[in-house]
């Protein structure tokens, strides 16, 4: 059963990691990906919007796919919304398994799909006062699509 949170608040990587190993001896590996806000080109902040209800459902489905495909002992996805400053974390994907390949592959799968399959929209705010909505990237579609090919 995946742990899924969409929240404005920051999260605690150490606590999330400890939670998936605490009190059990069947976890051989914990893979994680922490997405961080870059400060390219004078970016002052990212503002992330989501679709309450649909976003959580979409993430739950992606997590169910991962749990069906790999033998995971835990799957945690936390995605922040609201205003995020350069250097701050945006998203955490954390997967645990008895086997390292399952943890590593499912973590990569989940972050690739989150980029293309979960309703979030990023707006960039610049020090100049300008702002713009981030455009979707073809490379993200390609990264997500490779999981549906032969593997």
């Amino acid at each position, binding site marked *: 059963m995946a742990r899924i949170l969409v929240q404005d608040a920051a999260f605690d990587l150490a606590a999330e990691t400890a939670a998936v190993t605490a009190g059990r001896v069947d976890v051989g590996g914990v893979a994680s990906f922490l997405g961080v806000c870059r400060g390219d080109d004078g970016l002052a902040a990212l503002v992330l919007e989501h679709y309450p209800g649909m976003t959580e459902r979409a993430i739950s489905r992606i997590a169910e796919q991962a749990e069906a495909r790999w033998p995971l002992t835990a799957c945690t996805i936390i*995605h922040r919304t609201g205003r995020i400053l350069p250097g701050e974390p945006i998203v955490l994907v954390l997967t645990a398994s008895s086997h390292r390949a399952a943890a590593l592959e499912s973590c990569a799968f989940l972050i690739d799909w989150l980029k293309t399959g979960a*309703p979030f929209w990023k707006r960039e705010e610049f020090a100049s006062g300008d702002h713009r909505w981030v455009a979707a990237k073809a490379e993200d579609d390609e990264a997500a699509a490779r999981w549906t090919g032969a593997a």
Partner: protein
Amino acid sequence: MRVLYFAWLRQKVGIAEEEVAPPAEVRDVAGLIRWLAARSSGHAAAFADPRQVRAAVNQDFATPDQPVAANDEVAFFPPVTGG
């Protein structure tokens, strides 16, 4: 029918959501877009480039030919950029 707008579609339309009662000939997402686009200059601007518009019906991603009915929640938004 409840219609929601996100990201720059919300900004162009000028509202985050509205209750609408489209006529019976509006049967699918594509038809709803055409009907909504005629409601205001903001709506027209939001739907000016349909290639940049994605939709969800009752919180599932939907294609243009997906049927829509009176009690549905229909959302319009740009391609997603999370993660």
